[in-house]
């Protein structure tokens, strides 16, 4: 297995023009970021800092206004079809197709890459079983609870065993116990699959608990801090949390973050 390619973001800018006023809004301003293969990176930032725009650029649904995003030597936007089955997403809401059963929802990305029917079924069932939904494969989304639906969404993302997994506030709407359980499962599966995982979140606890790295975005996705969590001892997590909070509040890196290599 060759493993996922590295991600390179260089001089990335994204500018939107408002249709009503014609004014331009800079959502991302000269962002540089490198993500190594198999890293689990949590991106935190306040509402409106450009996290979701970065997510759309990463999955290739938006084109950069300037600069580049390269996954390996290819762009997720310009080489859109190349990444079919290589990038998978989990969203804040489960976004399951209501007319499909749990099994058929989990099969969806496998159908898109054109796997044989039997293989699709086998792989989707495997992932649903891994997520504890073996008895609910024929249930429709409206018959499942919020947590179960999000599990199906995670199974759908993992079914293609992607190189890159992107999660946008994937656990934010769930209760604390369910969210913690799902976060743990998600991380375990991502590591097992050997995928690079990028989690976008506004919850500091979540970022600290899941990320190998925490990237802190200020306004216009300005990179305020890039923290390797493992270099902080577990006992330092409250301090780390405080430092990130202060960074976000003041829109500049807290000096305490500079002390750690």
């Amino acid at each position, binding site marked *: 297995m060759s493993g996922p390619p590295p991600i390179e973001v260089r001089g990335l800018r994204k500018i939107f023009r408002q249709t009503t006023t014609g004014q331009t809004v800079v959502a991302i301003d000269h962002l540089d970021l490198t993500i190594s293969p198999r890293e689990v990176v949590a991106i935190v930032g306040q509402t409106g800092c450009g996290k979701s725009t970065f997510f759309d650029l990463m999955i290739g649904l938006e084109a950069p206004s300037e600069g580049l995003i390269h996954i390996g030597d290819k762009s997720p936007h310009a080489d859109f079809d190349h990444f079919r089955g290589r990038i998978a*997403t989990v969203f804040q809401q489960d976004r399951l197709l209501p007319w*499909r059963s749990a099994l058929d929802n989990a099969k969806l990305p496998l159908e898109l890459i054109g796997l044989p029917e039997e293989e699709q079924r086998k792989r989707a069932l495997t992932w649903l079983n891994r997520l504890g939904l073996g008895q609910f494969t024929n249930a429709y989304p409206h018959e499942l*609870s919020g947590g179960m639906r999000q599990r199906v969404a995670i199974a759908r993302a993992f079914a293609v065993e992607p190189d890159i997994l992107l999660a946008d506030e994937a656990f934010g709407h769930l209760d604390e116990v369910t969210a913690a359980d799902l976060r743990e499962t998600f991380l375990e599966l991502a590591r097992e699959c050997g995928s690079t995982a990028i989690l976008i979140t506004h919850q500091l606890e979540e970022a600290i608990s899941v990320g190998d790295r925490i990237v802190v975005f200020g306004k216009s996705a300005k990179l305020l801090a890039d923290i390797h969590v493992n270099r902080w001892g577990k006992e330092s997590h409250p301090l780390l949390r405080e430092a990130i909070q202060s960074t976000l509040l003041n829109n500049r890196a807290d000096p305490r973050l500079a002390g750690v290599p």
Partner: protein
Amino acid sequence: MTEEYRESVPVLTFPRQTFVSLLVFAAVWEALSYLAPYLGIPPFAIPSLVRIAKSVMTITPIDIVVTLARVIAALIVSFVLGLALAMAMYRSESLNKYLHPMIRVLMAVPVVSWILFAVLWFPGVEFRIGFVLVIVCGPVFLIDTLDAMHGVPRELRHMMQSFRPTTWQYFFKLMLPAIVPTIFTSWKVNISLAIRVVTIAELVGAVTGIGHQLSVAQELFSVADVFAWTLVLVALLFLLEAIVARVEARVLRWRA
């Protein structure tokens, strides 16, 4: 796992009120047919239920089959054309901008005008009837499906696009299933519309079909026959709607 699994519970309803209202209507009609001479109404204007039943017994099934075939064929053609154009208009914003006003104009033209155009433009009776039905029902399918496509939640479109489908996959795995409820509603509306339009079209130019038989009944001043054929039309409409509702319930069983 502590999360809950909810079973959906099917609900059955008995249309008792429907039977009651039909019975009341029949009783009022029968009473009026007896009272007609005393009210100064000619007896043939409100025939008794027995007389109507006799007319029903003389109905020629071939006319029902012909009308039904015309309606079903025209609805299928209208649906295919409407859906294909809606998909093209959804894909191409400029095509949408050019075609949309034209479709609105077509929809504003009265049915009678279309029948007159058809009589003046086309020699064949079947083509005339088919043309009128398609030109009336097609735009309804088109506008309904196009609006439904635009109404597919952005979240679902975004999710689907993130998995990088081809154009065909996007339509057949997301857009089409998502608009199925609207398609059923559109079919129900168009069945009712087509039954009414085909009757008028057959009245004007056809020598077969329920509309033609209504025209003959009118020439013979036979209200009982008109009533009988009208009953057939209503029954046909209910039957077609029931079939669509049955298919709808089966296809949309995923709905809460």
